[in-house]
């Protein structure tokens, strides 16, 4: 169990700066998800915490101890890699016991730990198999087993579910979360999938191009995104972000739509944000032309145009209209997000 502090961490590959001063505070036992588009530096940050990349600037501390120059094996961490990195020439048992073998643990202790981890992960029957004889999900579990047996201070996961099919991904998602809650080990989890982030995290850290855009609880990020990047990244389907300006007593969007504003709006609004699920059908709403209607059963997603401004809505009601027909919608004014010209929340 430990806290992790990343203070003004910087990373250059050669002369190319990849991380431009990143700050993250992770509490003891917390599940933190680093999320961001591919190439934004998530893995690099994780690997710096693991000690696999050296730190170009700033400081990383685990459990209060600065580890900038501490080699990976002395950081008391365990990492699960994207491709699992199971040793192909060792059985599941040997894979899990490898770290203990290196630490010269007694044979009984090793066997006990392996059995315990195998029980937790449901691997009992597979201990004598080789990685090539396992399915993707089983390999994933072995990789986690290898992490568990070490009782590390911190678990690090780098996109552990990205090689699994959609159904297994959902299942493993809750398994990992449940495991983390049971062991109460501080966990840093990297993903590019915001749904994984939303469903698993205590704290989400949204990264973009080597910077942190916002950090906070999942629902806090959903309810109050700090800028247009986070607003567009968190939530599915993505928030409508409409550029335009205030005029005619409302927000005149590019494309011509006139959207209503909440009371006491500052004058320098440049982007109007409304989540698809916060558009509601209303008799007194604005007329919108249907473009695409996608019923999912529980809700209906609709691509539409108000004048020439494209918007996406998600309605609990079933919409049977055909493309070209019109419906009347209005935004829930208490849930409108307004951003200035610099992209920041107003």
């Amino acid at each position, binding site marked *: 169990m430990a806290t992790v502090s990343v203070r003004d961490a910087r990373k250059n590959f050669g002369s190319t700066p990849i991380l431009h001063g990143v700050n993250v505070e992770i509490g003891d036992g917390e599940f933190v998800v680093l999320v961001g588009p591919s190439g934004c530096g998530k893995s690099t940050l994780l690997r710096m915490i693991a*000690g*696999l990349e050296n730190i170009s600037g700033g400081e990383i501390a685990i459990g209060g101890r600065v580890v900038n120059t501490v080699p990976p094996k002395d950081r008391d961490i365990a*990492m699960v*890699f994207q491709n699992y*990195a199971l040793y*192909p020439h060792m059985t599941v048992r040997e894979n899990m016991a490898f770290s203990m073998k290196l630490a010269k643990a007694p044979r009984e202790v090793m066997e006990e730990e392996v059995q315990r981890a195998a029980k937790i992960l449901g691997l009992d029957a597979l201990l004598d198999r080789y990685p*090539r004889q396992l399915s993707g999900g089983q390999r994933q579990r072995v990789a986690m087993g*290898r992490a568990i047996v070490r009782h590390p201070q911190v678990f690090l996961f780098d996109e552990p579910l990205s090689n699994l099919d959609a159904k297994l991904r959902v299942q493993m998602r809750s398994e990992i979360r449940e495991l983390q809650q049971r062991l109460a080990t501080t966990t840093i989890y990297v993903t590019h999938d915001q749904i994984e982030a939303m469903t698993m995290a205590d704290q989400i850290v949204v990264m973009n191009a080597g910077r942190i855009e916002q950090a906070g609880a999942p629902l806090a990020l959903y309810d109050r995104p700090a800028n247009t990047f986070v607003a567009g990244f968190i939530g599915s389907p993505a928030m409508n972000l409409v550029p335009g300006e205030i005029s005619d007593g409302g927000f005149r969007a590019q494309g011509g739509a006139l959207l209503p504003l909440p009371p006491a709006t500052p004058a320098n609004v440049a982007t109007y944000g409304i989540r698809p699920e916060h558009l509601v059908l209303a008799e007194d709403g604005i007329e919108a032309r249907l473009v695409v209607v996608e019923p999912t059963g529980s809700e209906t997603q609709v691509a539409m145009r108000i004048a020439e401004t494209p918007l996406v809505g998600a309605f609990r009601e079933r919409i049977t209209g055909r493309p070209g027909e019109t419906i009347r919608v209005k935004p829930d004014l208490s849930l409108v997000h307004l951003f200035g010209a610099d992209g920041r929340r107003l």
Partner: protein
Amino acid sequence: MSDVAASPGNTNTASAAPEQMAWDSKTRRVVLLYVPLACFLFILLFPFYWMTVTAFKPNAELYNFAEHNPLWISSPTLEHVYHLLFNTAYPKWLWTTMLVAVASTFLSLLASTLAAYAIQRLRFRGSQYVGLAIYLAYLVPPSILFIPLATMVVQLGLFDTPFALILTYPTFLIPFCTWLLIGYFKSIPYELEECALIDGATRLQILRQITLPLAVPGLISAGIFAFTLSWNEFIYALAFIQSSESKTVPVAILTELVTGDVYQWGALMAGSLLGSLPVAIFYSFFVDYYVSSLTGAVKE
């Protein structure tokens, strides 16, 4: 289905085509595959056949093609083999060759494993240049290198000892094996080593417990190459060894079995035949590894 039914004109060609195809592909296989393969095999194997036939022919048949079929033995004999084993130092030559080949292969594998690992994985400053330099060293022909090497061998007092060969063969074996192993190490996912690093392994433990076990096919093919090259090596063996009984097989059969301008063909061929057996046996044991190391990387 409905398309075919709708246009009956097509059915004719449709039913004729498979037969023609089958005939075509059979002919094509014979012409393009079996005939060239047969020629190739013939050219490749005929010298071995000739060697074998000659080794077991009595001299009377050997030198008289008019009365005997050159391609066949009427009355096989072991006289040449006997002569070779008991009237010459052949067993000693064989032993020396084996010793030199095994020792220099072992030395070279040891050095090139470490070199290849360092160049491929440690990525120290200038590692590419070291890799390149090693490759360039391989391009220097032995026929040039043996002159300075001869001076060194003499000054170190190694002349006419097996060490002269054991220590000089690595000059061409190490570059070769290093390059082969660099390629092989590249195919082993680096993540495995990073994972082992986090698991608490040192560099040497990683090399011994992760990388080398996974590189076994690569090590074996490097070993086979090194062994074969040292087994067949000629120039250094000719230059650095003088006394008759410490020669290696390729040099000895040529210098000791040709007396004046008399070629002892039977003994020569028996010597070559026996001399090629160890390499052939070596290959046949490891052929699976050898192929897999040339065709594939490590799969989980």
